[in-house]
């Protein structure tokens, strides 16, 4: 077994025992990226030089016996939505093509403090808006299990690079399912923490009340290790919650006794791929065989999840993305063209407004523009009450559904997606079909609870199937332990896509 096929936890043990150096490990991943990322397209930028320099520095530090961070020497891939000082951070958008933030996101600071090696930036849907990574302004990412298919999104690069052994650990973000859905479609583990568990400072906002940063890895253990580093209160983010971070990596292997899992019957039947249903049902049986009790529960308002989400998220996005106006940083249209255009069309629109209009039309892709317009419309006078305010009310009802459910069960178990990875281009002209990709995941974001996706089987066509577990706020520790119970009893996570 090559070193890159080992789990991060195994690699860490080898690093600590001196059998492996961070430079060797980093180089092995760089080689793998070099070999196969041409087929996958997971990375927007690979930071070869700085990664090797960082790795050498950490090896040096280890050799001197200095205290080391929790990820000392482990390479980590970062979704290109997390600000990194003096390094391009594009958010998958032309708008930020030449943008280099003058500061680090809090999670980037935490990764550096944990002595992680930053391997590169992964591809994503523009401003995290999408479910297939096809909305990236720069490139598509292919699903490592079938390169004619999408990897999911928006953290498609983050999931694909882990799945194809191009990074042991990767950081993504999840606003409506953007970690869990690509993790499911690429056959890796992805966790969306409770809203407020991880600081959003430096995460380029899509929908502030829904966005969370979370870990992706091949195993639950590795996911626990990375979450432990990412999580924690941050005075720079007033929505981050001041709760101590449990030592997830130390407890992850302790099975839960008397586990009660809730099953929502409406998750199955109509609309779900039968092979996915079968895999998820089989996973439920695995839990039963491990001693879990299964309860059937109702989530009366879950059907409104997508509608609610596609009001709230675009509303927040329309405001969050107003700052990309060409005036201060990022893309600005050609000034001479503005002047020439105005002279030609004789419009009474001032040059400033025309500059805004052109910069935003040229800098943003189609899906981002669609959502800005949806949100602007829904917040407008006369529509606010019918759309935004109503969506907030439904959001509260969805949270109440969860609260009621978690009084009866420890966790909710079900599918992550209704279908396996679809073909590139299949849904690009049908936004509604694309939005329905989030069917099983958005409610966790609306309610602010935690959710994890883990591999639970394959379709007959060899595509990965994901299992979702959802837990009450700040119950990540139990969520990881429950997920690890399943992973210890199954071997889906050990399979590898075949890429030449």
């Amino acid at each position, binding site marked *: 077994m090559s070193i890159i096929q080992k789990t991060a936890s195994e690699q860490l043990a080898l690093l600590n025992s001196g059998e492996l150096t961070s430079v060797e490990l980093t180089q092995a991943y760089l080689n793998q990226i070099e070999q196969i990322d041409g087929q996958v397209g997971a990375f927007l930028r690979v930071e070869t030089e700085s990664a090797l320099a960082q790795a050498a520095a950490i090896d040096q530090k280890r050799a001197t016996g200095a205290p080391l961070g929790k990820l000392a020497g482990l390479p980590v891939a970062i979704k290109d939505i997390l*600000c990194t000082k003096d390094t391009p951070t594009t958010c998958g958008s032309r708008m930020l093509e030449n943008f280099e933030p003058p500061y680090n996101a809090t999670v980037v600071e935490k990764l550096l403090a944990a002595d992680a090696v930053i391997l590169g930036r992964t591809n994503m849907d523009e401003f995290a808006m999408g479910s297939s990574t096809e909305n990236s302004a720069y490139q598509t990412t292919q699903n490592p299990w079938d390169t004619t298919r999408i990897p999911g999104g928006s953290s498609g690069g983050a999931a694909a690079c882990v799945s194809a052994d191009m990074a042991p650990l990767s950081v993504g973000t999840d606003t409506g399912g953007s970690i869990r859905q690509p993790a499911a479609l690429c056959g890796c583990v992805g966790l969306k923490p409770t809203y407020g568990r991880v600081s959003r400072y430096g*995460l380029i*906002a899509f929908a502030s009340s829904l966005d969370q940063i979370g870990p992706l890895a091949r195993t639950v253990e590795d996911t626990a290790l990375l979450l432990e580093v990412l999580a924690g209160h941050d005075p720079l983010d007033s*929505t981050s919650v001041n709760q101590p971070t449990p030592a997830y990596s130390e407890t992850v292997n302790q099975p839960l006794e008397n586990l009660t899992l809730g099953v929502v019957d409406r998750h199955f039947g109509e609309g779900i791929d039968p092979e996915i249903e079968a895999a998820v049902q089989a996973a439920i049986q695995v839990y039963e065989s491990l001693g879990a009790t299964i309860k059937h529960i109702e989530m009366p308002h879950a059907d409104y999840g997508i509608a609610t989400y596609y009001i709230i998220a675009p509303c927040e996005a329309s*405001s969050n993305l107003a700052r990309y106006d060409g005036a201060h*940083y990022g893309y600005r249209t050609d000034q001479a063209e503005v002047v020439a255009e105005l002279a030609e069309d004789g419009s009474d629109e001032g040059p400033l407004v025309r500059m805004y209009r052109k910069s935003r039309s040229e800098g943003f892709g189609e899906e981002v523009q669609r959502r800005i317009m949806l949100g602007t419309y829904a917040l407008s*006078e006369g529509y606010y009450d019918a759309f935004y305010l109503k969506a907030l009310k439904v959001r509260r009802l969805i949270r109440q559904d969860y609260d009621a459910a978690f009084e009866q069960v420890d966790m909710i178990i079900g599918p992550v997606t209704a279908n396996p990875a679809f073909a590139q281009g299949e849904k690009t002209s049908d936004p509604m079909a694309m939005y329905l990709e989030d069917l099983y995941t958005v409610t966790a974001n609306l309610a602010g609870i935690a959710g994890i996706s883990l591999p639970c089987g394959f379709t007959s066509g060899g595509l990965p199937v994901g299992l979702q577990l959802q837990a009450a706020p700040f119950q990540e520790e139990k969520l990881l332990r429950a997920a690890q119970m399943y992973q210890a009893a199954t071997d889906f996570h050990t399979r590898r896509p075949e890429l030449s």
Partner: protein
Amino acid sequence: MSEFSYEIVIGLEVHVQLKTKTKLFCRCRTEFGNPPNTQTCPVCLGMPGSLPVMNKKAYFLGMRTALALNCGIPKFTKWDRKNYFYPDLPKGYQTSQFDLPMSEEGYLDIKSTKDEFEPRRVRIIRAHLEEDAGKSMHDEAAGKGDSRIDLNRTGTPLLEIVSYPDMRSAAEAKAYMQELRLLLTYLDVSDCNMQEGSLRCDANVNLHITTDDGVIATPIVEIKNMNSFRSVERGIEYEAKRQYDVWQETGKVLGELPKQTRGWDDSAQVTRSQREKEESADYRYFPCPDLVPVIVTDQQIDEVRQEIGELPSALRERLQNEFGLTIYSADVIVNQGLSLVEYYLELAAAAGDNKLAGNWVQGEVLRILNDQEIEIEDFPIDAGRLAELLQLIQTGDLDSSKAKDVFAAMLTSESSAADVVKELGIEKVDEGALEALCQVLVERNQRIVDDVKSGNEKAVGALIGQAKKENPNVNPGQVRQICLEIINNL
């Protein structure tokens, strides 16, 4: 056309920059006048991924002000985004408060000492917090279309105080602004510098005109750009006349025209149309998801209430009722600010004569402060030293004109009043000697005696002049009194 009487209806929106060291949502400093864009950070620049964190000090200064304005403080308040595009607004929205402001329903009482208007209680709709925008500097030099943006001010905490349309004259609006500024100064919550923009006023103005067919209202105009109390007064006066003339000309009433924004041009002394506003602007307010709501306890509100010292209106009453000062004197002293009030209180206590202290503070002390353009903190005679001087007046050792000479000398020396008296060679004249001197003068001046006897009391002034020649230390009042007594007894 015939003329009709009208009433001016005025509501004011006042923006107060709160005196915090750092901005409302980041740790940048708030100082005025530094080089452009040197007081900025990713948060106030609206950089991607940056997040606001509320400055608690700003919230509590806002609360202190709101309490002093008799506002109620809701236990729950939240932040909203006001969305619009402008280059000096880097996020594309202003973080403000929309439907649940941090305070509401208060009032401020105004009075005129010159009887310009009846005392009035101006009700306050709300006072809410928001962040200031940056400054656009338009380069209007020929051939240049550049605008430059300074974001130093971006994110400075503002308290917006919105009054009901309760004022009925430009003088009332000016008095409201002056009283509000005085209050803010007593509260120590703002620099209140209208020139630097730390106190800004927009006025909503229209007229209620009594016509033959009843009362009509003219369209409401918002006046901006009034950077002094005088321009508030003049801007409103101008606007009232303008609206009346426009109504005479067009007959347009409220509702028939969109709300207009006009800027006060101080050099031309006119208001000019800026834009037809608000009707088309939709700010798409919604709760800011990056900031948690503020929840405050009764105890916290009480603590802030404790911080508030005695306020101008209460002090004026106390100076009248307890210290026996006239309304006018109390007003003059209180309006100079808390430091002068404290000086007065110390002086009155030490001198033992409230009225005399009042006269001196309001007279000589203020005259020097104005002449030298200094604050009472820099006034060279502290209350203790001045009290000694006032005591010399009370004992009759000094007459008021001598006292002024001593006062003038004390301004440039550190000596006590008594020492200055000695240095100037002022001596109290013995009463017996004074009477003897008067007797001699009366005997020497039969013509003056006759004049006085025939009813011209003023003629005795010539005796005072002679007395002063004989002895410069004599008290003219005493000379006058004694001479008159002697003459009358002849």
